[in-house]
C-alpha cells in the first residue's frame, strides 16, 4: 500500500473573539494510518475537527488533503472529496425511519458519482450498513422513527452514516461519549477492522484505553496547542501530557 500523505495540517489557528481555541497546530497523516486526538475538555479538539472539515473557517494556517489546499472549504465539498465526519452531539433525522436516515448520505453526490448512475436498491444498502454497525437485522428497530433510538444506537447510526459515504478519511468526534462500557466493547472490534482494512481514521476521544487499541499514533492538545505527538505509549509518559491531565488519571497500561 502506498504511504502518501493524505492529510496535512499546517499552523492551523482559530480565534473566537480573542480566545485562541486552536493555535498553530500542525500534523501529518498518511493513508491507512489511524490517528488519535486527545486532550482535556475544552482544549480545542472539536474545533480542530470543525476546521479541517470546513464547518468553521480558520483564522490562519492551511489544510492539505491529498495534496490539495482545502483550507476553509465548504463543508459539503469536503465530504464530496472523501472526508466523512461524525458529530460529538450526534442527532439523527428524528422524523425519518432509521434505515431511511442512511438513504440521505447514500443519495449524496459523492456516492452517486462513485457508483455511477444507477445505485440499485438504496434501502437494501442501508439495511446492510446498519447490520455492519451492529443493528439486528430482523428487529423492527430500523423501521422506527430515528427519534425513538436509544443513545448507543444513535452513535452507531452516526458511524454508519459516515461509512455510507465511502470515505477516504473518517473523522470520528467522540464516538464513545455517552456509550456504556459494553456498547463501546461491542463497537471496538468494528473500528479495529476498519483500521486493518486500511481505512484512514482520525478519532477524537476521551477514553484513552479504548482509543489506544485502535490508533497508531496520537496528537495531544492543551489550550489549543499541540503539546505532544507520537506513539501512544510514548505520549502517556510525556511530562507535559501528564500535567495537562492532572487529576484525571492517564492510563498507561493501555
Amino acid at each position, binding site marked *: 500500500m502506498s504511504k502518501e500523505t493524505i492529510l496535512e495540517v499546517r499552523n492551523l489557528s482559530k480565534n473566537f473573539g480573542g480566545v485562541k481555541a486552536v493555535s498553530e497546530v500542525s500534523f501529518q497523516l498518511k493513508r491507512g494510518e489511524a490517528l488519535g486526538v486527545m486532550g482535556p475538555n475544552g482544549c480545542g479538539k472539536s474545533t480542530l475537527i470543525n476546521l479541517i472539515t470546513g464547518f468553521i473557517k480558520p483564522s490562519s494556517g492551511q489544510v492539505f488533503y491529498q495534496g490539495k489546499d482545502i483550507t476553509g472549504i465548504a463543508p459539503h465539498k469536503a465530504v464530496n472529496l472523501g472526508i466523512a465526519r461524525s458529530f460529538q452531539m450526534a442527532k439523527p433525522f428524528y422524523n425519518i425511519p432509521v434505515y431511511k436516515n442512511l438513504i440521505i448520505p447514500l443519495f449524496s453526490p*459523492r456516492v452517486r458519482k462513485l457508483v455511477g448512475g444507477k445505485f440499485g436498491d438504496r434501502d437494501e444498502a442501508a439495511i446492510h450498513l446498519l447490520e455492519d454497525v451492529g443493528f439486528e437485522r430482523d428487529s423492527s428497530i430500523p423501521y422506527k422513527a430515528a427519534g425513538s433510538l436509544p443513545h448507543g444506537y444513535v452513535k452507531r447510526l452516526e458511524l454508519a452514516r459516515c461509512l455510507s459515504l465511502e470515505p477516504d478519511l473518517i473523522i470520528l468526534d467522540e464516538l464513545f461519549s455517552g456509550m456504556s462500557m459494553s456498547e463501546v466493547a461491542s463497537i471496538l472490534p468494528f473500528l479495529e477492522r476498519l483500521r486493518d482494512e486500511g481505512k484512514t481514521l482520525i478519532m477524537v476521544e476521551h477514553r484513552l484505553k479504548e482509543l489506544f487499541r485502535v490508533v497508531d499514533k496520537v496528537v495531544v492538545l492543551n489550550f489549543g496547542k499541540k503539546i505532544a505527538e507520537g506513539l501512544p505509549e510514548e505520549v502517556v509518559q510525556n511530562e507535559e501530557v501528564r500535567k495537562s491531565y492532572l487529576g484525571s488519571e492517564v492510563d498507561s497500561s493501555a
Partner: protein
Amino acid sequence: MSAKVGYRKERLDRGIKARTDDIFAISTYREILYLILPRVFVIAGLLIFPLLGDFTGVYWQNVIVITCTIALLALSWDLLHSVGLVSLGQAVFFGVGAYITGFLAQQFGLPPLVTIPLATVFGALVCTMLLYPVLRLRGVYFGLITFALPLLFMRIIETTKVLGGTEGMSGLPALPSIAISLYIIITITLVCVFGFQRLFETDYGLVLKAIKDNDRSVIAAGFNISWFKAQAVFIAALPATFAGAFLTHHYQFVGIPAFATDYSILPLASAIVGGPGSFFGAMLGAFLLVPLSELLRDLGTLRIVIYSVILLIFVVGLPEGLYPYLRRKYFQFERVVSMELEEGGK
C-alpha cells in the same frame, strides 16, 4: 394486595399498516378499497363539481376557484415548512405571479394560455432569487423577510406608479368560461397535492425533509443545503405564482391587493389547521376555511381577526392539525380494555 380493575383505551393499527407509516400490506380488495376510497371521493367530487353549475350557481363556483387558489398557496407554504422555512408572506409569490402575468398580457397582448405558464415559471425564478440570500441563515430570518417583502412591493408600486400604480391593470383577457377555469385550477391543485406527496416519498424529498430535522447532518452527507433549499423554494413557488397568475385572469384585474395580507394569512391558517407536513392537510384546511370565510363575508376585516385567532389556537393548542388526526382515526381501531390496578396506583 387487592387488585382493582380499571379501564383504558387501547389503540391498534389496522392490519393493512406494516412497519412504517408509508408501507401497507394489502391482501384483499376490501383493504385496497379502504386505502383508496378517500382519495377517490376527493378526486371524483372535485371533478364532478364543475358539471353541476346549474345546481351550485356561479357564486359557489367562484368560491371553489378561490378555495383552490388558497389551497395552492397553502400547499406551497407546506412545502416550504417541510424544509424548515416558515413563510409569513405567501402573498409575495402570489403577487409576483399576478403582476408578471398582468404585465405580459397588457404590454404584449399575449393570451392567458401563454402568460400563465410564463408567469408561473418566471415568477418562481424571481422569488427564488429574491429569497436566496436568506436561505443561508437558519431560524427566523426567512419568516421576517417574507413578511417584509409583500408590504414593500406594495409600497414600491404605490410610490413609483409602475405597473399601473395604485390603479392596477384592468381589462386583462379572461379565461374562456368558468367551467374551464374550474377544471384547470382543480386539476392543478390535485396534481400539486399528489405530486408533492409523491415527491416527498422519493430520495430527493427525503433530503428536503432531512434539512428540517437536522441541516448539519445533511451538510455532513455532502449536500449543498443552500442549493437544495433554493430548489425547494422554486418548487414551492410554482403553485403559488400559478395561483396569482390564474386569479389575475379570472378577475381580469391585477392591483396592489395582490400583495394583501389575506393571501399570506389564509394559506398559513389553512396549512396549520389542516396539519403541517401533510399536503392533504393543507388542502383540507383551505376547503374548510375559505368557504367559511365566504359565509362570513359581511364581517369585513373581522374575518382576518378570526383566522388569526384560529391560527393561534391551532399553532399553540393543536399543532398536529386536523388531517393527521383524522388519518390516525381512520387507520386505527380504538377499544376499551380492562386492566388490573394495584392498590395505591391510579
